[in-house]
């Protein structure tokens, strides 16, 4: 990458962040709610992107982890505990459960693994619904308070959006660091060729479990934001369809790309809202749009960009080669 290209990228990043902070100031409550939802779903999808995109393990349980996080936050904050404590509990809980759920991933792969996680997803839903003493069952938990952050109340939509955006920022930085660390490289090695990774001395067993556990913990983080966002939770939003939705976000955005979940969540959360003007057809149009996208580019939106950049680089390289060749030929 050239130095100029690098500066352009930084400028673009700063502009996007500034826009995310400044533009919503004029939004109505509905717009802020949808944007907050986008940040929450992005965090959950980032977790799944780590498991699926970087480590190559198909998981249909991410929605269940969002549910676990949401219930932890709902139960604890309605009992008067601060959200940060609930966040800690959710992370530890999801990490531990994710680690345990990772064991089947050591033995089964791909769609077999998907089935194992699907079973877990159903199990989690049944626990949310049937363990009345803990989760209030199908009635759900209402009046979930929004937190005070550094002395600021986040009851109003705008402060709560900033709280969500800030959380997304922290998670993004952590993720950025993680995938550039030796761990991140190990995850990719695991996806590309587990046998070779093993022969190079990477403990594939530990890293598989780690990918699952960290990805799940991020699902839990998203859940602890989801509960105070809607301020009411019941088991229904955390059924299998949320897991499938998250999986779609990762794939549509571009699985294995850092910014994939951001775009994927944007499409999954915002596109149906934009299409609502078509009344009864909006979900159909949305489905068709997603299908067309995946037919055109199975690697998602960022896959298109990636393809374009690769093509350009190839072209530039062949042009250089041609020049070099012609020079050789014209040389005396």
């Amino acid at each position, binding site marked *: 990458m050239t130095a100029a290209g690098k500066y352009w990228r930084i400028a673009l990043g700063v502009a996007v962040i500034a826009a995310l902070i400044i533009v919503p100031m004029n939004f109505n409550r509905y717009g802020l709610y949808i944007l907050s939802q986008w940040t929450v779903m992005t965090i959950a999808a980032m977790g799944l992107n780590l498991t699926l995109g970087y480590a190559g393990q198909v998981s249909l349980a991410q929605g269940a982890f969002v549910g676990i996080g949401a219930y932890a936050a709902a139960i604890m904050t309605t009992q008067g505990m601060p959200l940060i404590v609930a966040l800690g509990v959710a992370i530890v809980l999801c990490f531990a459960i994710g680690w345990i759920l990772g064991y089947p991933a050591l033995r089964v792969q791909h769609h077999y693994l998907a089935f194992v996680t699907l079973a877990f997803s159903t199990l989690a839903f049944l626990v949310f619904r049937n363990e009345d003493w803990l989760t209030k069952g199908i*009635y759900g938990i209402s009046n979930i308070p929004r937190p005070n952050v550094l002395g600021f109340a986040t009851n109003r939509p705008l402060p709560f959006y900033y709280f969500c955006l800030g959380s997304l920022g922290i998670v993004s930085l952590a993720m950025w660091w993680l995938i550039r660390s030796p761990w991140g490289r190990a995850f990719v090695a695991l996806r590309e060729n587990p046998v070779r990774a093993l022969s190079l001395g990477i403990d594939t067993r530990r890293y598989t479990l780690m990918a699952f556990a960290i990805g799940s913990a991020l699902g839990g983080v998203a859940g602890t934001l989801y509960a105070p966002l809607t301020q009411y939770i019941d088991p229904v939003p955390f059924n299998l369809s949320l897991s499938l939705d998250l999986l779609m976000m990762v794939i549509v955005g571009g699985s294995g790309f850092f910014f994939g979940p951001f775009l994927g969540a944007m499409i999954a959360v915002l596109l149906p809202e934009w299409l609502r003007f078509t009344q009864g057809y909006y979900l159909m149009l949305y489905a068709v749009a997603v299908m067309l996208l995946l037919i055109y580019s199975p690697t998602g939106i960022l896959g298109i960009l990636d393809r374009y950049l690769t093509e350009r680089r190839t072209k530039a390289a062949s042009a250089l080669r041609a020049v070099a060749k012609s020079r050789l030929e014209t040389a005396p």
Partner: protein
Amino acid sequence: MRSGIFAGLLLVTVSAATAFAQGAPIKLADVAELSGGGATVGNNWKNGIDLAIEEINAKGGVLGRKLEVTHADSQSNPGVARAQVQKALDNEPYVLLGPGYSGSVKVTSPLAAEAGITQIMGGEAAELTQGGNKFLFRTSFGQQSSMPKVAKYINDELKAKSAAIVWVNNDFGKGGRDVITKEFAKYNIKVAADLSTEAGQADFAADVSKIKAAAPDAVFVYLNEEESARILKELKRQAVAVPLVGETTLVGQKVVELAGDAANGARGHVGLTTDAPVDLVKAFREKFVKKYNYVPDHNGLKGYLAIYMVKATTEKMGKVDPKKFADTLHGLTIKAASEPGILMDVTFDEKGDIDRQGFLVEIVEGKQVVKQVLPKLN
């Protein structure tokens, strides 16, 4: 030049304002379960609303102004319902209609109350109107008023000492089950079996054999229509001969069609039914079938009634005033004689609960027969 633009703008604003005062449509917002698990509920509700609005507008509207409604889909998901209600409230509707799922009502009703907008909804869970929300109104009996009638019937008429309860495990079924269990306790009726089933469940053989083993004096069935038909068939197949008692969803026309002979003998309390022996309800049913080509369930009636509640309340106030709407509707009695669209006389109490006549019906040879009309309380 600039002053010209300004004057033009001013003119547009002023004329828009006068148009608003004279005959601009009254904006209503509906958020309902148009897709997902509650799609039948939401679409019946929506069609009922559209039918009522079409009728009212054809007759010149309310106080000379047309009604206009926007429908938004909650996907049967409380989180989406919250977003859509927020969007609807940002546009400052006159009245908010829906949602139908009790969970979605719970998440949205504080928003409407905060905005000071009246919400007329379809949820039936008992607790909805017990939190002191001054802006929330039902369109049908809450479970806290329908279940005591069922329990009383099981005790007084059937003289049952024990009963099995079969319920569908969602907020509707669980809510009904919890209220009736309490009512049974008052009458010392033993719960012989307490069976939770899934929405969409196809096979009830296991549940029915459990009922058989428990040998209760009566079975209380609280499922959706399709599942009600399935369990009725299975109860007949396994020759369970005790009385089968339920609510609106056990004795509806759809259940009779699906279950055939097996539906005979089923009885229940019905608050709103298109089979009610009331001329206005029959006329409603005909109009609905003519427009949509199918027989609506009670949710269709609820949507229809919601609009006529808006009409009657507004005419009572004599003006379109969203702030006074809820106050006016509390304690209001709407008579079918003066407002035929309300179908049956109805009174709204201080909590937003309704008082209306109900029916005890039994299926006899494939027909709903009203055994008893339970009068309006006051």
